């Protein structure tokens, strides 16, 4: 839990979000800690993806969003990214027409430290060896799992302090999902990055998360340590399915 003297990595207070006239988020309060994994759970249409978009300034918002204590709401998406917030968006956001290598270079677009970028490239190939073999391939021809790996690597190449992951399991075979989550656990431990992960697959997300929030129609209905949420009777029945 955040202490008053050290601000949370990300803190939202009374966050509202809307697409044009239709309001989707109704006053969310949540925090993401440095180096921890926070899961945002909920059914389809609960507002999970919208929450990530709100953080990145991709939709109209009201309320406060603080990153390392400083307000970022109302800023342009590209400026927010340059502060160190990487977002693996809904649908993975692959640059389909470009090569895998170009996709990765774009991930590091905001950085000037060439040596650091080179080292990060090498680390990404350690996490995802397939990407190295496919560097010259057009990214649109990668399989769904490979595109997800590419998206995570691209996001990490920003050297972010906060990583937003939108449904990393979406549309992937269970075995691939397991592989990706195994690597995710390693990444969280080794990179020291704060992660906010959105998942429909609640058991998967709770397995790697420290803290979790449960969203229902744009409101947070439950918050707490991931272990407590996992044990909660109602959550188990509605979202974990056992």
């Amino acid at each position, binding site marked *: 839990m955040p202490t008053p003297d050290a601000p949370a990595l990300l803190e939202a207070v009374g966050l509202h979000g809307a697409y044009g006239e239709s309001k989707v988020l109704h006053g969310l309060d949540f925090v993401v800690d440095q180096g921890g994994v926070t899961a945002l759970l909920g059914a389809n249409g609960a507002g999970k993806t919208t929450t990530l978009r709100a953080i990145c300034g991709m939709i109209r918002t009201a309320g406060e969003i603080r990153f390392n204590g400083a307000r970022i709401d109302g800023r342009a998406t*590209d400026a927010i990214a340059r502060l160190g917030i990487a977002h693996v968006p809904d649908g993975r956001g692959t*640059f*389909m027409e*470009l090569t895998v290598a170009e996709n990765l270079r774009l991930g590091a677009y905001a950085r000037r430290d060439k040596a650091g970028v080179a080292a990060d490239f090498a680390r990404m190939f350690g996490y995802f060896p397939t990407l190295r073999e496919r560097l010259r391939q*057009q990214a649109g021809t990668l*399989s769904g799992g490979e595109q997800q790996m590419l998206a995570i690597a691209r996001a990490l190449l920003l050297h972010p302090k906060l990583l937003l992951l939108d449904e990393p399991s979406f549309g992937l075979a269970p075995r691939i999902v397991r592989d990706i989550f195994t690597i995710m656990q390693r990444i969280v431990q080794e990179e020291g990055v704060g992660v906010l992960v959105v998942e429909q697959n609640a058991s998967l997300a709770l397995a790697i998360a420290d803290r979790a929030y449960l969203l229902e129609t744009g409101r947070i209905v439950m918050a707490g340590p991931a272990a407590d949420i996992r044990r909660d009777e109602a959550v188990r029945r509605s979202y974990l399915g056992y």
Partner: protein
Amino acid sequence: MNGLLHQLVSGIASGGIYASVALALVMIYQATHHVNFAQGEMAMFSTYIALTLIEAGVPYWGAFVITVAVSFVIGAAIQRVLMNPMANAPVLASVGIFIGLLLMFNSVAGWLFTYTLKPFPSPFGEGPPLFGGFVSRHELGSTIVTLIVLLTVWAFFRFTRLGLAMRAAAFNPVSSRLVGIPVGSMLALGWGLAAAIGAVAGMMIAPVVFLDPNMMSGVLLYAFAGALLGGITNPLGAVVGGFMVGVIENIGGAYIVGTELKLTLALVIIVVVLVVRPAGLFGKTVVNRV
């Protein structure tokens, strides 16, 4: 035989101009998914700027550089002021702006500089033709300038960080913003670059066809045919297509349809490409796996 060779060479020379304008069209097309009908008129207007500078006593290459720079600024300003607010507008709004720009540049040029044909100097000298009479000095010089421009643009997009960011912004603006690319600035740069390339094309064609406010209307049509022939989604294809159209136009004009009907060749090419191979010769259909 000599006649054919000569037609081939001048075809390549004018093809270079079409290739430049085709490249400018493709650059805007990739970012907006529309063809900028005003690209030719913008180039014509730039050429008048160059002529004004030269008549004011600025040396040719000085005027050349200033014109390219001013055209870049005009192009970027058009994107910022006119196109940017239209980012989420329906297709017809952009098309309306393009047509409006075409009419505006054409009328303003007529109003400022009159509609009379004006000679435009060639920086490559008058002298006798080179290589046994096949190539005029201007043809050779303008082809070299065109090739330098095309190579520079290619290298810029292929090898620089900024070039990659501009391509990314055109293909996928949402993901580009998420990696920190200021997409609006990239699009403005693209418009500026397209206008600058067009300005060079205008200054290179003007000594051949004389300068008047309608100078580029035919060139734009050939360039469009070239872009379609090579593939409007592929800058390299558009350049090759531009050169091909130049050669087809010259040889077809000299031996098949006659000079009066040359422009119809552009229309024939456009129709044939759209019917037979809509993606163009080198246009790749992007494969997406999900």
